[in-house]
């Protein structure tokens, strides 16, 4: 009987072209979003490739330069001498740390267009190259590109509501419901058939176009963990969509007119998708204000200047005491400028540390707050899960920053002792430079987080679904 209901329901839908126009718009939006996401991934990848290429050309020319200098064919100032560890490690031989886009990066641009995905690591303090102080709040749902996640999180629910806001009310208004329910069929069964048909259609349009778009955009679907992630993405999308269907059923179960249903459902959409995330964003910033960026920059500058002043005092005293060590303008015999820089960096870092710590602490508080309160809207849960799966979320970025930090330490640990020993670098030292390899995020952890998200998307489904079913039992066709 379900199949028979669906068959005629489909014919009725076909006659009413509006839902198909809406679905076509959704399809186009999804295709456009997927194309945008794929372009973004390609753009990131090409930047990374260019950076790494630049690094390898630079390294070859440094090797050539070193050979010439060693052979005495050329003379340069201390600042331009790659054999000096302070010059190499601080300026000439810098290495890139890069976070390549994740296999399913085209699913969601997320914050990845705001957060740098590559840095040039030097022996200087981390703040000089990680200008990561302007972190946009992860709840900042509205910001960003028109990507697939946007289409899924914003437009997909609207299309679902367009398909289902009057699923019962329209039939009641047209009078067909009375005739249908004078037959031995329950309202629940009738609605099930109608909803399943619509859901199959909307989900098929969304998921097929998304997957096709992402695959056509060159997503590495064969990469490790990519397919399970794609399946989880499908799960998140389906449960998120199911939420909106159940919401529409619940609204219809109240027995109001189609017009009222449309108004209320549009209002709920606005509330859950736009207002709550925005309010959460404002609330989190009000409750855990991050020290202003100006303050941070100021602190870094002041600390830098103070250290530099002390540094020049030190240098002046140093020169007075050891006039024979004054720079002779020849390579290889610079004064212990490198040592001073090491001290200077150290001092600056020490001074900036409390401000940075406060910054980090507040950011962490913000993120914890968001994690705790994201359950107020399924849109936020779905968004963070989708970003997680696409690798453009907070977790993967934190994971990257930790790797940057570790690599920065290795870089320093390599150069600082050489600077202090005034040990010149040779070609074989270059072979032993610390190399950065991006460590993939633990796939199991991502899967677990997203499975939890699936679970928490089920909660509103049940919280809404049970009362909706009860209301449907009391639904009166007349009177």
């Amino acid at each position, binding site marked *: 009987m379900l199949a*028979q209901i669906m068959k*005629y329901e489909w014919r009725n839908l076909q006659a009413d072209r509006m839902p198909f126009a809406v679905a076509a718009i959704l399809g186009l939006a999804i295709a456009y979003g997927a194309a945008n996401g794929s372009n973004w991934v390609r753009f990131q990848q090409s930047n990374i490739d260019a950076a790494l290429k630049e690094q390898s050309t630079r390294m070859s020319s440094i090797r050539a330069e070193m050979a010439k200098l060693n052979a005495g064919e050329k003379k340069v100032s201390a600042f331009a001498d790659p054999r000096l560890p302070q010059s190499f490690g601080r300026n000439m031989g810098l290495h890139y740390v890069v976070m390549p886009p994740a296999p399913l990066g085209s699913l969601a641009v997320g914050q990845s267009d705001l957060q740098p995905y590559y840095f040039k690591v030097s022996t200087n303090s981390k703040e000089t190259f990680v200008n990561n102080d302007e972190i946009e709040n992860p709840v900042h749902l509205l910001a960003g590109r028109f990507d697939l996640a946007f289409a899924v999180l914003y437009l997909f629910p609207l299309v679902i509501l367009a398909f289902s806001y009057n699923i019962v009310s329209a039939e009641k208004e047209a*009078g*067909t419901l009375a*005739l249908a329910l*004078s037959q031995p069929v329950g309202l629940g069964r009738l609605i099930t058939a109608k909803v399943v048909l619509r859901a199959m259609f909307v989900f098929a349009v969304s998921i097929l176009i998304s997957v096709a778009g992402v695959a056509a955009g060159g997503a590495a679907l064969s990469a490790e963990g990519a397919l399970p992630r794609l399946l989880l993405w499908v799960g998140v999308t389906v449960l998120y969509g199911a939420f909106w269907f159940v919401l529409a059923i619940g609204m219809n179960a109240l027995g109001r007119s189609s017009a009222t249903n449309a108004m209320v459902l549009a209002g709920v959409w606005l509330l859950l998708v736009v207002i709550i995330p925005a309010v959460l964003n404002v609330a989190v910033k009000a409750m855990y204000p991050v020290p202003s960026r100006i303050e941070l920059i100021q602190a870094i500058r002041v600390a830098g200047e103070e250290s530099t002043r002390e540094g020049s005092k030190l240098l002046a005293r140093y020169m007075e005491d050891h006039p024979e060590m004054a720079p002779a303008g020849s390579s290889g015999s610079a004064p212990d400028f490198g040592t001073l820089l090491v001290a200077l960096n150290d001092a600056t870092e020490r001074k900036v540390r409390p401000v940075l710590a406060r910054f980090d602490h507040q950011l962490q508080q913000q993120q914890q707050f968001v994690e705790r309160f994201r359950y107020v809207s399924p849109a936020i849960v779905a968004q963070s899960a989708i970003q997680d799966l696409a690798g453009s979320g907070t977790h993967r970025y934190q994971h990257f920053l930790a790797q940057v930090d570790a690599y920065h330490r290795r870089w320093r640990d390599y150069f600082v002792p050489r600077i202090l020993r005034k040990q010149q670098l040779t070609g074989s030292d270059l072979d032993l430079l610390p190399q950065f390899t991006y460590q993939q995020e633990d796939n199991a952890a991502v899967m677990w987080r997203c499975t939890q998200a699936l679970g928490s998307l089920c909660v509103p489904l049940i919280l809404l679904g049970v009362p909706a079913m009860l209301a449907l039992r009391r639904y009166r066709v007349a*009177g």
Partner: protein
Amino acid sequence: MLEANQLSKSYNGTTALHPLNLKVEPGEVFCLLGANGAGKTTTINLFLNFIAPSSGMAAVGGMDVVKHPLESKRLLAYIPEQVMLYRNLTGLENLDYFTSLAGGKHTQNELRGFLEEAGLARADADKRVGAYSKGMRQKVGIAIAIAKKARALLLDEPTSGLDPKASNEFSQLLKKLSGDGAAILMATHDLFRAKETGSRCGIMKHGHLVATYATADLGHAELERIYLEHMHD
């Protein structure tokens, strides 16, 4: 077949239907007469379980419609004042859809046969219902009843707005169905049809069934006189 036992309905303190006792046997056509708001539609909606009774019981084929909502509807057919079908489907498709809701499986030819039996012109079966007249839609309603072999029919002012010929055809169909053993409960304003097709008629006023008559005992004029007498307050 249709039985109301102390059946009543009130909405927030206003009584739409005072305890009603009524039996319609197979082959009988019971016409409910009365002004608008007298409780005729309420009675029919109670039999359909579209509204819940405040007290008493409505039974179809001996089954309480509240306790056996689906089973009782297997026996029922309902023809409202306006048989509302899916405008974008043909008469045949509508019939197929609604009979399939009743669990019926019929071939196209059988379905066409039901429509023909209900008096719908052969060519009209494949036209979209949007282009149907009220009378044609009523015929599809009857065809649904024929297809599901309804044992009881609930009709709510089915002939209002039908032209005399269509109305007459409709009466003939009802006679045929009752002749086949269906119990028919029809709310109507049409005293003439009530006399023509009804075996009994009951007059309702302010939620009370105030009188019942066997139509065979009454002439047209007499029925009208009695009806009007009852309508005076």
